[in-house]
């Protein structure tokens, strides 16, 4: 029986930070640090296999069982609602999901609010909770230009520093939810690898406590 722990890491700087935490937690895989175009890395000794995937796909790999655990942003978890365990808030990759609009925008409740976003589910739920009638315009990128060009009244998007918004004469109007990276696990895999996964959670928790 294959007892490798399969880990889906988000490509990019966040993934590298996460790998460092996993390595320190007792799951090293030195080959991942070599400069190569490989996407899958294995360490037979520690029985761990890492693979780099697009950050927004991590939850799918985990939900579908290709990965036992992975690290995904809370934005992705809220948007796609995968049926996975969310074991730990890693307290990294911090930002917020926010409503932004032109700096001089004033909401008129008499009119349907046009909302441009990549996160249709999050936006729909947020405004449903407020009882606000909206028209969602689903975009895949460059969301910031939608209000500038009159395509939408507001945008719902991730805001880190707010610099991009400022440069485009936009401002945050409301914060929907704070976002950070979460350690997630496949519900079935967890049952068969709980010793390893629990150890990983314990070790990473200890690292986070120590760095506070």
């Amino acid at each position: 029986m294959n007892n490798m722990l399969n880990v889906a890491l988000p490509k990019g700087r966040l993934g590298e930070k996460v790998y460092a935490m996993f390595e320190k937690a007792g799951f090293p895989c030195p080959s991942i640090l070599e400069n190569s175009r490989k996407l899958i890395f294995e360490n037979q000794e520690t029985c761990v296999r890492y693979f780099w995937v697009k950050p927004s796909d991590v939850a799918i790999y985990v939900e579908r069982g290709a990965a036992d655990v992975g690290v995904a942003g809370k934005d992705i978890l809220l948007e796609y609602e995968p049926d996975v365990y969310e074991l730990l808030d890693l307290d990294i990759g911090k930002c917020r999901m926010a409503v932004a609009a032109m700096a001089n925008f004033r909401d008129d409740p008499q009119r349907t609010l046009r909302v441009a976003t990549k996160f249709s589910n999050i936006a729909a739920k947020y405004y449903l909770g407020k009882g606000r009638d909206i028209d969602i315009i689903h975009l895949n990128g460059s969301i910031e230009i939608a209000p500038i060009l009159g395509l939408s009244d507001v945008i719902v998007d991730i805001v880190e520093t707010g610099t991009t918004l400022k440069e485009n004469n936009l401002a945050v109007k409301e914060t929907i939810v704070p976002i950070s990276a979460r350690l997630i696990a496949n519900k079935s895999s967890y049952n068969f690898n709980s010793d390893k996964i629990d150890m990983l959670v314990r070790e990473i928790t200890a690292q986070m406590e120590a760095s506070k």
Partner: protein
Amino acid sequence: MNLQNLLISTYEKVSFSLRDLYSHYGYTQYKMSKFEEYDLYARNKDFLISDKVITFTDLSGKLMALKPDVTLSIVKNSIDEPDTLQKLYYAENVYRATKGAHAYKEIMQVGLECMGKVDDYCLCEVLTLAAKSLLAISDNVVMNISHLGFLSDLIDGIGISGQDKTRAIQFIGQKNYHELSGLCRELLIDEDKISKFLQILTTTGSPETVLPVISCLAADITDVAPVERLLHVVQAIGDAEAKGILHFDFSVVDDLHYYNGLVFKGFVQGLPQSILSGGQYDKLMRKMNRRSCAVGFAVYMDMLERLDADKETFDVDVVLIYEDGAEPAALRSCVDSLIAQGNRVMAQQKIPQNIRYRQLMKYACGEVSILE
């Protein structure tokens, strides 16, 4: 020739053994139509795994649906006899939207339902049959069990209600303790209670070791009688193998509007989601104006094809190539002789494309030679 290994898929083997298992325990097969009035599902949307249903208007103008669920139809069509117990099993196709695929899928579901007077023996039998159903699929299985009624009382007991209770249930289902503890603190719940509550939820393991601990921790928050009853039910399971796969875990949650007591989910190593799901659904019975209690479970048979995926399979054992003009009687005799040796044989003049074969042979001048 070993017919069972060659031709019968895991799906077929499991389907036969489950029906055999249930009928040995006195469950009778329930057959039903593929269609049901849409209204039944419209009134109980939250009970369905997906609220998307295939509908059509029948010849009398009624809005009908292709069944997305079996339990609702069984409850609707059953006679309400709260003092007796009806034991039924089914093997039926249901039609559901698949997550993310934007398409409907036909899914074979095998399961059982007990309706009427559900006592501890009945719960014990259903739990045993659920565990045995999992063991009929694989040796590497786990069945997580929980008690939704107790969990609900526990959440009430520490002072979480309304929308916050729904959020709390969701966090528990995700083992999301960071947000659960955040919610408790947001609601200014006493730190001692929070600590006990979170401890109860993280305590998992064999029911016989975990339930007494939970009972002790929860004693000053809520009534622990449901936990003690569940322990009694688990202790009554005689089959050591079935008992051995039970694992208590509060992350097994379901809709509180329908389920009220014991709930469970079964997992098979190698399958990404739970293949078995069940529980006590007295609240659904009340919603449908039934006085009876009920418990049941379903096995999602469509997931079994994943277990066959890694199996090395050949379409035939032997592809026997012969030349144009070969003597038919002699060739037939050669084919028969290979079949008699336990092979599946395909006689062809040319090597067929897209056929996986174990051996390639050639028939020429009454002789058979192995090519590869």
